[in-house]
Structure formats: structure tokens, C-alpha cells
């Protein structure tokens, strides 16, 4: 009946060390990228407007060489100009200026009007508010992660399987942030939402696996394969939705949806690796060696 079968992996061919090596290497690499980013730029990721402060204008592209006009219209050099053809707009971003935070949005919108550009949307974020947002966001992610960890420990009440879930959820969070840095995606509120969603999504397949191995009868490898068949389908389905969302939303220039899509796609990819390499090997160690001790 099942037509597209999830391939079975023969775990017996690999030792725990071999299985753990790949996810750990990826995690270390990701942490190194984030750490390096912090050393070089002073922030763990490319912070977007919401976390740095500044002004973003969406300017309608009415066909007459708007890009050229944008170059000359403003007193300040824009930090970035992005074109979104599907929506016929240019997104122009100005970082907050230390020397003149006052009235920046007013000035810029007046300058755009003077140059005959029509502004579709203006976002203004003050630097002090932005740093406050950044703190709140970090606090929120930390709180969510902590809450999830406590819940997982309460559900399984054994150390190794619980820590396996928490560890792979941690890696699921860190890897997308590193990939974001490499792809040049900025950290925005949308990406924070996506990171929190990863906590929710990624734990699903881990719980499924742990449940199958610990709470169900049957041989270890059989349990793993059963959980894997379901879990991989789940993750791939979610990934399909997120990839489509990322592609469509970036064509249309709906940044929030695009960012959520990209982060979740990467996070779910990382989750596949972490669940079926890291988590499985920790469980196997626990089942065959840990319990006996």
C-alpha cells in the first residue's frame, strides 16, 4: 500500500562514534561560524532593521529608471537597495545614523516625495527600541528552549533520552543561524518566530523516536525504522510547505514569510540529521550500554 517508501538505513554497520561524528562536526562548525561572526561583526548574526534601528522604504517602481532616481534622491547613501520585480517595488534600507537619529524617517520620506518617488511603505525603528527588541527576542528564545527542555525531561523522566532530544533541538537552532549568516539572511522578528517554531517542529520527530524506542515493545532497530518511516514523512511534508513558502514569498517580496520559510527549511534539514544520527546513536548507547550500568 505504501508507495513511496522511506529508505531503511542499516545502523548496525556504523558505530555510535561514527554516527555522532557528523552531527557533532556540523554543530561545531555552526558554532564556529557564529562565534567568528561575533568576533568580526560584534553580533552573532546579520542583524536586520528591527534589531539595529533604521528606516526602510518601499518605493514603487513605475518604470522610469527608479533605481537611478533612488541613487540621487537621498542625502544619505542607502545601506541597501533591493528590487522586487513581482511586486514592482524597490526596498531601500538606511541604518540608523548615530549622529542624527531624530527625524530620519520624516526627512527620507520628504526626500522621496521631492524626487517624485511614490512610497508604498515606511518602517522606522529607533536604535534604543531595536536593542530592546533584540534583548526581548533572545530572552524569548531562551525561555522557549528552557520550557521545552523541562517538558521533555518531564515526559521521559530518564536522562539520556531527554538530553538527546534537547541536544538535537539545540543543534537544530544553531545550524539555521549559521546558515543564515552564510547566505546573508538578516536576523529579523520573522526569523525569531521561525526559530521558535523549529523548537516546536523538531521536537516532534525526536519525541516520536524516543517514544517508539522506549515505550513500545519490539526490537531496537525495528522501533527506529518504524519511527523513521513516520518521522521522515512528517519532516519532508513540513519541509515541502516551507520551501514552497520561501520561494513564493521571496518572489513576491513578502520578507516575513520568506524568512520563516528559509529558516524552517534549513532547521528541518538539520533536524533530519540530528534526529536520525545524533539522537539514534545516543538512544542506542542508552539501550545497549547505558541501561546496564
Amino acid at each position, binding site marked *: 500500500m505504501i508507495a513511496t517508501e522511506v529508505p531503511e538505513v542499516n545502523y548496525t554497520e556504523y558505530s555510535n562514534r561514527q554516527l555522532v561524528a557528523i552531527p557533532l562536526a556540523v554543530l561545531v562548525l555552526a558554532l564556529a561560524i557564529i562565534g567568528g561572526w561575533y568576533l568580526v561583526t560584534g553580533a552573532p548574526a546579520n542583524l536586520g532593521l528591527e534589531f539595529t534601528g533604521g528606516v526602510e522604504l518601499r518605493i514603487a517602481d513605475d518604470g522610469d529608471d527608479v533605481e537611478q532616481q533612488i541613487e540621487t534622491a537621498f542625502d544619505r547613501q542607502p545601506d541597501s537597495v533591493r528590487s522586487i520585480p513581482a511586486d514592482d517595488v524597490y526596498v531601500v534600507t538606511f541604518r540608523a545614523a548615530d549622529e542624527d537619529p531624530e527625524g530620519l524617517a520624516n526627512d527620507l520620506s520628504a526626500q522621496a516625495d521631492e524626487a517624485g518617488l511614490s512610497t508604498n511603505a515606511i*518602517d522606522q525603528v529607533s536604535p534604543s527600541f531595536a536593542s*530592546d527588541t533584540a*534583548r526581548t527576542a533572545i530572552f524569548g528564545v531562551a525561555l522557549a528552549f528552557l520550557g521545552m527542555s523541562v517538558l521533555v525531561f518531564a515526559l521521559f523522566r530518564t536522562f539520556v533520552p531527554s538530553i538527546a532530544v534537547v541536544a538535537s533541538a539545540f543543534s537544530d537552532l544553531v545550524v539555521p543561524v549559521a546558515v543564515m549568516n552564510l547566505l546573508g539572511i538578516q536576523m529579523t522578528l520573522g526569523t525569531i518566530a521561525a526559530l521558535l*517554531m523549529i*523548537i516546536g517542529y523538531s*521536537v516532534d520527530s525526536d*519525541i516520536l523516536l524516543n517514544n517508539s524506542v522506549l515505550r513500545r515493545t519490539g526490537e531496537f532497530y525495528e522501533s527506529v525504522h518504524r519511527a523513521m518511516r513516520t518521522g521522515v514523512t512528517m519532516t519532508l511534508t513540513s519541509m515541502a510547505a516551507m520551501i514552497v513558502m520561501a520561494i513564493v514569498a521571496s518572489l513576491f517580496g513578502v520578507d516575513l514569510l520568506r524568512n520563516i520559510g528559509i529558516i524552517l527549511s534549513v532547521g528541518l534539514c538539520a533536524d533530519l540529521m540530528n534526529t536520525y544520527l545524533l539522537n539514534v546513536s545516543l538512544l542506542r548507547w542508552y539501550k545497549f550500554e547505558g541501561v546496564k550500568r
Partner: protein
Amino acid sequence: MLEPVKNNWRILLLVVVVIGATVALFAPQFGPQTAPGENASEAQQGVTNLQYGLDLAGGTRVRAPLLGYTATEVDFDGDQPDDVARAVADELDGVSARDVGAVAEENAVEVTDASVSESEFRAAMDASGYAYEDVRSGVTQETRDVAQSIITGKINEAGLSGGSVQQVQSLTGEYFILVEVPGEDRSDVIELLEERGTVQIDIAYPTENGTAIQEEVLIQDHFEDIGTAAQSDQGTGAYVPVTVRNTAPEGEQSPAHGFQQAVADRGFAEAYSSNQDRCDYGENPDDVSKPCLLLTVDGEVVNSFGMDSDLAQSMASGSWATDGGFRLTTSEFSQAQTISINLRAGALPAELDISGQGTSRSISATQGENYKNYSLVTGLLAVFAVAGMVFLRYREPAVALPMIVTALAEVYALLGIAALLSYPLELAVIAGFIAVVGTGVDDLVIIADEVMSEGEVNSRKVFNSRFRRAFWVIGAAAATTIIAMSPLMVLSLGDLSGFAIFTILGVLIGVLITRPAYGDILRRLLTIR
């Protein structure tokens, strides 16, 4: 008769929820609330009762703090708040008493003049001799409430429907005023917020050719202190106690003396010799018989009144100006409030710092319309992607089709809730819907795989035990999602609370209603054959 209902109650519950959502979405009774002067069909956006937020309908959102400093836990020492405020104001150079407020209920003293620094305010508090615990930035609760009601009033007066004003607190404890006005662009909203109504007092007096007006006998700058609106002790009506300034630069007449002079010149003392004498401006504005004081707001006369004979006498004798106090009376309390507000420096009790620490977002109506269409297309394509994956995996319409229908029913129920709560849809909420489809289908996959594992399902008992096993995982997964999302619901992170609220609601609907129903559907399809 009852047996089929009992056996299929989960499916029936889902049907009820879907019908309920349909009612909430389309029945006119659940339509959006109308703004003053707007009818129901104007308030409705599109064919459904759904409300669209800023992102999808266009509009402006401004979030900014009120500027000022507040001394907390002040020991008033039994003094009246007004005296405390005056004592502190006296210690601050060039700050008038109306920029310092003392609130007895909060044990707080605040300064709302933006030019006063924190250290200057601390020094003034120390010099005034009142003990206090600490000085924080921001203003008192009372002032925030006044500012909120003023802004709400302004938005309503301007006839802007769907506008909202809220106070929000950041993680660091700072308060912000959050203003949202749909359909207006940034400059209009900021103009509205910064605009200040002009209040002045004119004198109408009788001449041979009818009423003549002496304008601007008193203007905003002339007031030393402006009290808050109060209900009048006798009869109806309300008043605002005010004090006219009796100081002036060298060689100039003080406003109090100027006002006293004008009143004396127009013969108020003679006209109001007894308490029976009334101003008749209200009846015949073009031909008054006695001089009247006219209270005008933005050039419009809102009230006219005569003068108490004692007050008129004291002005005629020239003794009033030293004290300079009198009451501006109005017939309605709300009018007194507006006057009190407009007389204060700027329309707001403290400056709203939009350009400095403020945050604003403005989206044009066309951009909003685009976002609405794009997010619809994005959402639909995401659902198709999910459907494609599910078909690819199971190749069995009996399993896959109900899966997709159930997942869509979940989103439909969520839309119904949004319409019921009049919760404005934002891009973030749409992202929440897509997330719900994702988690929803995940859980349905768990149910389907669990139920169909280990051979054929041939009895109800087998089905039920497998279904319960699947439900443990689903419940655990739902709990983690809810825990992970709940911080977002309460932290002030802009739109993201909407995202979190709808993801959590979706998970709850899923676990409690749609996923059990899917189980029942699957059972019927798999066991009866």
C-alpha cells in the same frame, strides 16, 4: 437512534466547529464593530467578517514612549499634590507648574518637560525636601492613561475607523504608547498626534450695532496652572480650575492684569450685580445684552458664560490679579476634559517621542492589498505542496484526502475564531496558519502510520488502542509547541504575538477536535470494508 451519534461524535464535533466558523465568518451579526458615523457595510472588508490588520489593509502604526521622569515612592508628608508639584517646579529653572505633576495614589512626582534631564530632576527633588525612592524615565500611570484617552479621542474625532491606542510595556519595564490607524499614511497620523488644539477666551459685549467680540483676552500661554476637569459641586455641568499668570517681563502688563483690565473695561461688574444675572450669548449671539466670556476651541465657541458677581467685583476693584484663579465652566464633563487637555502645553500631557525612541510602520493601501493576495497565494501553494507530498507518500486517496481536508478544516476554524474575536489578520497571523497546516499534517501522518502499522485494522478495539498510542506522541508534541510559542504571546515583539496566538490556537483545535475526528474518519474508512 443515539448509537450513530455516540460512535461518531468526534466527526460531528468537527462538523459543528466548521459550521460555527462559517457562521462567525459570514453572519452579519458577527460583523466588525462600526466606528462612529460608519455603517455596517462600510466597516466590512470584503465578503467575510474578517478584519485585516495593518499589513494587509494598509495603515500606520506608531509606537513611542512619553517623555519625562518620575520619582517613585515619594513621601508627600501630608501635603496636597498640587503643593508638592509646585514646590518641585519651583526648584526647576524655567519649568512651569503644569509640567510637573504629583499623583497621590501612585506616590509619584513626574516632570513632563522634555528639556529637564534626569539629574536636574533628581536635584530638584532633593532640593524640594520630599523623600523619594528612585527616579525612572517615563511618566506616571495617570499621565499615560490621560494620553491614551486623548489620542483615542483625537482618532475618533478625525473619523478614522478601526484605530486603536494601547499601552504596552517592554521587557525592561518601559511603557510605550502604541497607536494603530488603518488606511492612513504616516505623515497624517503623526500630524494628528502632534497637532494641538487652540483654546482661547474672548469677550462678547453689547454695542449699538449688536455684539462685538474682543478676541484673545486669554490664550494658552497665559495660564500658570491648569487643573484637571472636575464635576461641578452644584447642579450639572463641569469646570476646569485655572490660574492666570501674574508675572511678565519688565514694563509689560501681566496676563492676569490684562484680563482683569479687559473684564473691568467691558463692565462685567455692572452687568452682573446679582446672582440672577445670566449671560444671554447662547440665546442671541448677535445681540447680547450683557458682556460674556466666550470659550473657543479651534475657533469655535464651545461655551459662553457670565461671571459670578463677587468675581466681577474683585476684578473691578483690581484685587483679583494677585491670585488669578477662576473656573472655566462647561455644560458637559467631556467638554471640560477637552478644554483641560487643549489648554495644557501641547495636546498631550507629555511629549510623545516619535522621532527619537519611536518606531513606526506605515503601509499604503495598495501595498496592503498586494500583501493580502500574495499571502493568499503563498498559503494555497504551501497547502498544495503538503497535499502533493502526502499523496506521493500514501498513494491512497482514502488516507490522504481526509488528511488534507482535516488540515484545511483546522485553518477554516481558525479563520472563524479570528472573525469571532475581530482579531485583525496580519502577515504574521498568516504565517501562523501555514505553521498550523504543517504541524497538523505532521500529526495526521503520525495517526495514519500508527493505525496502519502491523497489519490490517479489522476491529474497533485494535484501532482504538493504536489510535491512543499515536495520541500520546501528538499530545507531547503539541505541548512542546505550545510551550515554545507561549513566550511570544506575552513578550512585546510586535506582530509576533499574533503568530504565536494562532499557532497555539491551531494546535489546540488540532489536538482537541480535528485530529480525533481524523482518527474516526480513518477508522470508518479502514474497518468497514
